[in-house]
């Protein structure tokens, strides 16, 4: 599907435009049969994925590929919101139904809560969201304030970014920063400078959607550098391998940021396989695809690895608000150790 990806115009989501369109080789698509043996026994943690826009098939495939836990950052659902209620419902779904759905496929679900940069520009609504946000960031399983930062780099974006940094500081929660697609370098520097200005320890900040241009400064200043393997646009898995070769595993993590755009919820296991093919040591792969995310977001005190490190027990006969994920006479899968790759 990636053969001639430079000719395809992607659906804009996290990655609005691609001014630096083709940098071959960027991304390599890998099929399950090509890589399943390479990642046998590995387990993965996807620290950035929007499951609310993904299907049951994705959950099943992720589980099968060894993804045992994930973080779903609050983000833009694509459609402009008409009021506070839809924010409440969305935030509630992140700690409620979506978390339950994930559990039914053997994947531990965490989330970060925040008002995203794009929606910060609707100031009357943003004001209302800020009023209820404290009631969400303290909920169980919320591992950070995110994803926040800049999109168009407007004054309103800056205002709500700063307010949320203060909220994170007060709540002692890590911060997950979404860096802008346009003028990324400047936006990333500005995001970091503001975080430091608010007295936030950079080891509590995960700067997301990095590329070759931004990574050095992010690491040099002591922040976590997250990379999004998002086919067709900014970071391909081939390039990711090179980044890891150059910078090593310290404070680097990989995510899929899969959402309602053309994206890949299996980006992490596939990139792990590619790293393996390129001779990157197992321990390095483990750090960038699993452990670093746990260390960074674990500062929230909300991650207990015992919940997922030896697989995640699934009982599909469980219900949430009386609703099951099973439809029309489907029988629950037998309860078993769901980590297929042992």
């Amino acid at each position, binding site marked *: 599907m990636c053969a001639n990806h430079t000719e395809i115009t992607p659906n804009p989501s996290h990655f609005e435009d691609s001014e630096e369109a083709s940098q071959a080789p960027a991304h390599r698509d890998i099929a399950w049969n090509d890589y399943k043996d390479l990642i046998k026994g590995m387990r993965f943690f996807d620290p950035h994925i929007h499951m609310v826009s993904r299907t049951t098939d994705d959950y099943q495939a992720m589980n099968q590929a060894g993804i045992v836990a994930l973080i779903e950052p609050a983000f833009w659902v694509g459609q402009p919101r008409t009021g506070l209620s839809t924010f*409440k419902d969305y935030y509630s779904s992140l*700690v*409620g139904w979506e978390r339950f759905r994930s559990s039914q496929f053997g994947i531990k679900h965490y989330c970060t809560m925040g008002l995203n940069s794009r929606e910060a520009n609707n100031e009357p609504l943003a004001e209302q969201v800020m009023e209820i946000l*404290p*009631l*969400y960031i*303290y909920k169980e399983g919320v591992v950070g304030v995110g994803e926040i930062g800049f999109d168009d780099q407007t004054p309103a974006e800056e205002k709500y970014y700063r307010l949320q940094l203060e909220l994170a500081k007060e709540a002692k929660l890590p911060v997950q920063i979404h860096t802008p697609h346009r003028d990324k370098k400047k936006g990333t520097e500005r995001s970091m400078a503001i975080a430091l200005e608010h007295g936030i320890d950079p080891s509590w900040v995960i700067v997301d959607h990095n590329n070759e241009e931004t990574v050095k400064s992010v690491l040099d200043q002591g922040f976590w550098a997250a990379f999004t393997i998002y086919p067709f646009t900014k970071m391909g898995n081939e390039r990711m391998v090179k980044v890891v070769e150059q910078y090593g595993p310290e404070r680097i993590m990989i995510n899929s940021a899969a959402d309602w755009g053309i994206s890949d919820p299996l980006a992490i296991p596939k990139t792990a396989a590619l790293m393996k093919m390129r001779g990157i040591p197992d321990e390095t792969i483990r750090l960038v695809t699993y452990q670093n995310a746990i260390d960074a977001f674990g500062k929230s005190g909300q991650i207990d690895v015992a919940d997922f490190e030896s697989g995640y027990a699934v009982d599909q006969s469980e219900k949430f*608000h009386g609703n099951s994920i099973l439809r029309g006479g489907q029988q629950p899968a037998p309860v078993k150790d769901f980590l297929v790759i042992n």
Partner: protein
Amino acid sequence: MSDIIKQKIWEIIASNTSVTEAEWLQQKGVSMPGVAMPGVATPGVATPIELMTAFVAAPRFLSKKIIHTSDGEKAALNFEIPGFSVDGWSLVRLARVWLLTQLDPSDKEEYVKNIETLFDTAEMNELVALYSALPLLSYPDQWLFRATDAVRSNMGFVFDAIALHNPYPEKYFSELAWNQLVLKTIFNDKPIHLIEGLENRSNEKLAMTLSDFAHERWAAGRGVPAQVWRLTGKYLNQTLLADMQHLFDSEKEEDRKAAALACSEAPLPAAQYLLAKYTDLEKSVKSGALTWADLEH
């Protein structure tokens, strides 16, 4: 709401928390619980948003354990609000309820808005705490919609929080809502004797609805828990009498016992004649050897 109840709850919290936990709560709640003058705004008293945030954040600062209460503490709570009990609660649930009691009710609009916001944004454990707190909240009529909504809820823990050991429904539910609650409890296979005010709010309509419900179950080859017939004794009529005969004919001993108990409570002479046919059962009921408590599971 009386300040005594806040104080009593605080005492239970204090005996179930570590120093750090108690300090966190004091700092989030009022400056000095029990010392602060009731109704007098003292410097350092928490703002609504601080209290609401602490309500949400409680599991981050308090241990996940079940509290213990002494008989004296139980009696004291029950004396203040009959039927109110915190038995089997987690520390987090109790602390959340206590934090809610610290919300200043003097501005009704503001108070109601804050509680509604908590309901709107709540996850399941928070809902449990909110429904558990209903008997302690000001403006009780304001929460009727929420309370009857919880009865419709299929969330097990939320349903339990409103239906079992909660004196709010007995006091404020309409007859229709009350009957729904009792039937839903039976339907969910939960023990009705844990509903506060079961005796006080018994009514003929409920007894007849129960008969219909039992017929549906029997038609499907299923039974009804024997103790639910305690809701029918006073209202036995020809229809229910036929149900009693059905129970006396049952293979289950508990069904026969339930029929005997219900008949013995009935003013209807025909019920006494029916009971007299089952000498042994009649004897144990009349002697007090058999009571509804024997059927409570």
